């Protein structure tokens, strides 16, 4: 296994990508939009470079599909996955999209009802994709719920969702910039950016920041966001993360900023105003 490093700002450092991606690379997997930094990666460029060495490209789109327009043909990836619970949908359901020739080649990984074509005592053949991968009783309720979420977001318009969320991100970043005791982890410009903003308050652990916000009715995520190695690489133990979606408002950003101002007092932090 090899890893693409990140710059101090949290962007993928592609300086030595040619040495990392070689003829020996079988799979190049990366995220479309970072769940920690809010960065949006240059998927098309990365996919083309991976394909040039014959590697398969797998994209984590869990943070992009719910927040910005995604067109699989434009991205040029081979496999793409996203989950229901991050896009107003139910838990326990997600989507794997793949180019049909790749899915056709992939072996069955679960056997059960509804995925066979013919069965004899000597051999079995399997249903075509996607039934081949959907053995057993389907999670029908979750699938219907996810479809409703897709329809809902599509009706809002993903370009509008993205623009709305970036407006919120801009407002939060501007507000955080006037609070020198807060350090944003990730890019502070809107170029190739998604809708999460992670930050640390110097001298206060993110869990404590989150607790103070929680007490004021504000839900943020704290911790290492299932990305411990990334946090180590950025030199922080954990971060506090505001995660915007289509339903958030500018007024809520202001409430968050006002609530943050109570943090230094609770922990006896002296801040320059």
């Amino acid at each position: 296994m090899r890893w693409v490093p990140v710059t101090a700002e949290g962007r993928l450092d592609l300086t030595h990508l040619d040495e990392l991606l070689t003829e020996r690379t079988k799979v190049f997997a990366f995220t479309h939009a970072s769940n920690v930094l809010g960065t949006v990666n240059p998927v098309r460029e990365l996919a083309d470079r991976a394909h040039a060495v014959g590697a398969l490209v797998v994209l984590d789109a869990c943070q992009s599909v719910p927040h910005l327009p995604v067109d699989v043909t434009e991205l040029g990836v081979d496999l793409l996955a996203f989950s229901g619970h991050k896009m107003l949908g139910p838990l326990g359901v997600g989507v794997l999209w793949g180019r049909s020739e790749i899915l056709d080649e992939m072996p069955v990984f679960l056997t059960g009802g509804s995925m066979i074509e013919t069965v004899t005592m000597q051999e079995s053949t399997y249903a075509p994709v996607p039934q081949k991968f959907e053995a057993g009783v389907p999670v029908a309720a979750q699938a219907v719920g996810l479809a409703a979420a897709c329809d809902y977001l599509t009706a809002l318009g993903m370009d509008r969702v993205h623009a709305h969320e970036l407006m919120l991100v801009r407002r939060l970043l501007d507000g955080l910039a006037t609070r020198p005791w807060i350090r944003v982890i990730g890019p502070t410009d809107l170029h190739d950016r998604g809708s999460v903003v992670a930050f640390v308050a110097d001298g206060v652990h993110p869990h404590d920041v989150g607790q103070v916000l929680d007490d004021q009715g504000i839900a943020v995520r704290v911790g290492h966001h299932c990305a411990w190695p990334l946090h180590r690489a950025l030199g922080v133990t954990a971060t506090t993360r505001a995660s915007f979606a289509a339903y958030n408002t500018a007024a809520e950003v202001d409430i968050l900023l006002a609530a943050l101002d109570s943090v230094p007092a609770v922990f006896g932090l002296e801040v320059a105003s």
Partner: protein
Amino acid sequence: MDLYQQLILDHAKERHGSGLREPFEAQVHHVNPTCGDEVTLRVHVADGVVQDVSYDAQGCSISVASTSVLHDEVTGYPVEQALQTYEAMRAMLTSRGRDSGDEEVIGDGVAFSGVAKYPARVKCALLGWSAFADALVHAGVDITPPAVAVTTPVGVSAVGSLHPTDDKDPS
């Protein structure tokens, strides 16, 4: 907010007994995987007395302060009494607020009674204490509560009590 008692903030700022020292019989490393809180903790036991608890803790104010209180409340005490303090602290933290803690037993530990109402933070407050109990086991101490004091329901082992979960109801 009632969660952050001044005692907790004081212990978080000035950690009593912080740092790793010798001699020690056992060293353990415990983490809270959901948030990345970490503690490396050593125990030195001699003549049936906890001679020293030394540690290097990283984490939120709750976890760090709780480990600082641990140092105060068990160092210099007979192992048996230290274990009673541990059990009392654990009982309070997993009581969901029903057990406000006995200051006679857990000292500054009572400042953490509010934590029991926040299930997500209970593990933070228990991190150092669980590490302490684990280190005692590694040091060869039998931490099983005496038979007369056992009130745990059938099926809950003593080892299990080292890893209390939020949903375990000790009553």
